[in-house]
């Protein structure tokens, strides 16, 4: 963040380089139930990001030492495919994926009714197939749809969305150039029905006013993405009845 003050990210007409307005999302698509082997799964595309998530469980937690007597543990593995960016990523866990796995697990734990399944484990595998800034948010959105698809009880869905600051202007949903050359990034996980925040990180600096505006953008976008998530889940079971 910062240090690239001379890169132009806003056009003269006030729009962004890809033609979006300041508070406009990249196109989002959600599809539920894409992997037949998993208990629940989802694919989310968000701009050029593509994330596929598989959920397994609740299952017996192994090794036994990770079991919690009063609740389930959520085991998240976030991974970027080697081909997901223009530079090849060395396969396997690294510092960044470990961090994202942890914050995602913490965010999901606050919505999943983990106390219903003591001593068990819910496995969430997030695979980023293509990356263009904001993959942790896409991963959280996809994980929420996959968990719902797996029939795991949750208080609410959770939507991952980010705002940021470029050229001293607050904008919604940073793309790759804006993320690399912008001044701040504010990814959050929002519970769309209650408006609670399950996850928030900030990279760079925002003034209180800028922060408020960024959160306003995030909440508005979360509502839009939530609608797409609900439609995807309902579409999967069209023609069905209990």
């Amino acid at each position, binding site marked *: 963040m910062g240090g690239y003050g001379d890169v132009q990210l806003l056009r003269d007409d006030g729009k962004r380089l890809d033609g979006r307005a300041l508070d406009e999302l990249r196109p989002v698509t959600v599809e539920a139930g894409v992997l037949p082997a998993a208990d629940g799964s989802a694919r989310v595309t968000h701009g050029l990001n593509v994330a596929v998530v598989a959920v397994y469980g609740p299952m017996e937690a192994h090794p036994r030492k990770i079991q919690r007597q009063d609740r389930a543990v959520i085991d998240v593995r976030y991974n970027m495919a080697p081909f997901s960016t223009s530079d090849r990523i060395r396969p396997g866990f690294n510092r960044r994926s470990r961090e994202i796995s942890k914050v995602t697990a913490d965010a999901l734990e606050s919505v999943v009714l983990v106390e219903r399944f003591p001593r068990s484990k819910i496995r969430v595998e997030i695979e980023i197939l293509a990356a263009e800034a904001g993959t942790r948010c896409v991963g959280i959105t996809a994980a929420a749809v996959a968990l719902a698809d797996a029939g795991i*009880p949750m*208080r609410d869905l959770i939507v991952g969305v980010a705002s940021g600051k470029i050229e001293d202007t607050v904008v919604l949903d940073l793309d790759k150039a804006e993320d690399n050359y912008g001044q701040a990034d504010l990814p959050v996980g929002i519970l769309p029905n209650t408006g609670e925040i399950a996850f928030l990180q900030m990279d760079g600096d925002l003034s209180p006013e800028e922060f408020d505006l960024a959160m306003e953008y995030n909440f508005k976008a979360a509502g839009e993405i939530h609608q797409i998530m609900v439609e995807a889940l309902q579409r999967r079971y069209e023609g069905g009845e209990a």
Partner: protein
Amino acid sequence: MSQGQDGAEQRLVTPGMAVGPSTGKRAGSGVIAQNDAFIATRLGWLQELNNTVSVNPINATYMPRSGDLVVGVVAEVRNNLWFLNINGAFQGLLPMSLAPWKVEFGAARMHMDVGDVVLARVQEVDECHNVVLTMKGVGLRKLNQGAVLNVPVQHVERLRGPNNERLQQLRDMSDCRIMVGENGRVWVDGDNNAIAWSRNAIQRVASEGHKTNFDALMAELNTMNKGDA
């Protein structure tokens, strides 16, 4: 599940969705009360029966209850007990005192080893979800032949049909012995052709069980020749 067919209009709800005020009503499974409103916690069909609001889940995990008949697979053997995979979040424990044989301490493996399949009943489930199984009872035994098929747990009731009618129909049509475990495992035994036919039929329950026209789809089975399986 079957109540859905004769009930009023069905509504598909997703987790977190508000499903109406909670005053004067009770929250059933898949629903929690929050600030005088009911919130759905699972993806499924909303249902209101006897003043209780609940969600019929589209996907579910098997939650053992005492008295359930289950088909289990031996996952671990200890000196005096077996751990059985019962297709749920928790393994079931079968102590040697509840096995149908006289088992010497240390000789559990002589009777059943990892991978063996048994028909058992859930004896008790405590508040920590420890599941104790029993094989003492009529018909409970180790299954030495036949095939084990899977259906989603939430479709078990549909596979049975009202008063087990559909299950009986399947048994008659297939010439197979069929036992349906509450945990979504179905044991089928008969000659090879009959098992192949049953597998086809039961797979259809697994894939089409949530559909409105399920009964019509099952009726088609009558026309399905065993030679086609």
